[in-house]
């Protein structure tokens, strides 16, 4: 949808961005409440879809076979995979200082980055220096 909006030069309205923020947060609450995994969803613009009713749906780890958490993609150094881990979390994982209690940092970072991407109609990596 970001690409569509970009091609039409039609920015998301503030109300749409608030709706997306609410929906993404609600998706994580759903996983946190019902899921058995300590890690939550892998939010990024590629995993956010809109259904027939205009409601946002997140494709998380359960949506596809062979899906891997961002943490594993980072550990496997798969640079082709899009991940939006918080910089300090990514650094911790790359240096094997694992801290499972702080996974929510990356989830919140990913939600914010996704909303910023939608607001700017731009890839988050083009506006944020991860180094």
């Amino acid at each position, binding site marked *: 949808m970001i690409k569509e909006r970009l091609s039409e030069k039609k920015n998301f309205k503030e109300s749409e961005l608030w709706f997306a923020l609410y929906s993404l947060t609600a998706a994580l609450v759903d996983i946190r409440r019902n899921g058995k995994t300590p890690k939550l969803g892998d939010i990024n613009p590629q995993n956010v879809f809109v259904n027939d009713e205009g409601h946002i749906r997140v494709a998380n780890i*359960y949506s596809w076979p062979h899906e891997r958490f961002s943490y594993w993609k980072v550990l496997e150094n798969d640079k082709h995979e899009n991940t939006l881990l918080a910089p300090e979390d990514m650094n911790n994982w790359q240096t094997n200082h694992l801290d499972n209690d702080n996974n929510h940092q990356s989830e919140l970072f990913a939600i914010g980055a996704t909303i910023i991407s939608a607001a700017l109609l731009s890839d988050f990596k083009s506006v944020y220096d991860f180094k």
Partner: protein
Amino acid sequence: MGNSNKGVKESTFKSSNPHLNKAKLIENSTHDRYIEAAFKAQNKDYSDWHNALKNSGCQESNYLLLPTKVNYNADAGLCGNTGTLTVTHHLLRINIPSSHMF
């Protein structure tokens, strides 16, 4: 849903999500639309994923994109431990939601 139904239309589906690279868009006779993606999978991988999906407790979520239908066909052969997994998700809107929804 399903390719053999009369009146089913198939078209290609473009998405930046890598899992949807070869997905098809299916529209049935009642104009319901679905995304169908097929994967090669090991028996064990499929079984693990399916169990995780069932045990996730998230099936009724209004906010997650979870499969509405999963079909696994094992490859023929004496020692076959692979197969083709077809995953169907209820359709997503491709066009832009109208403003009255917000």
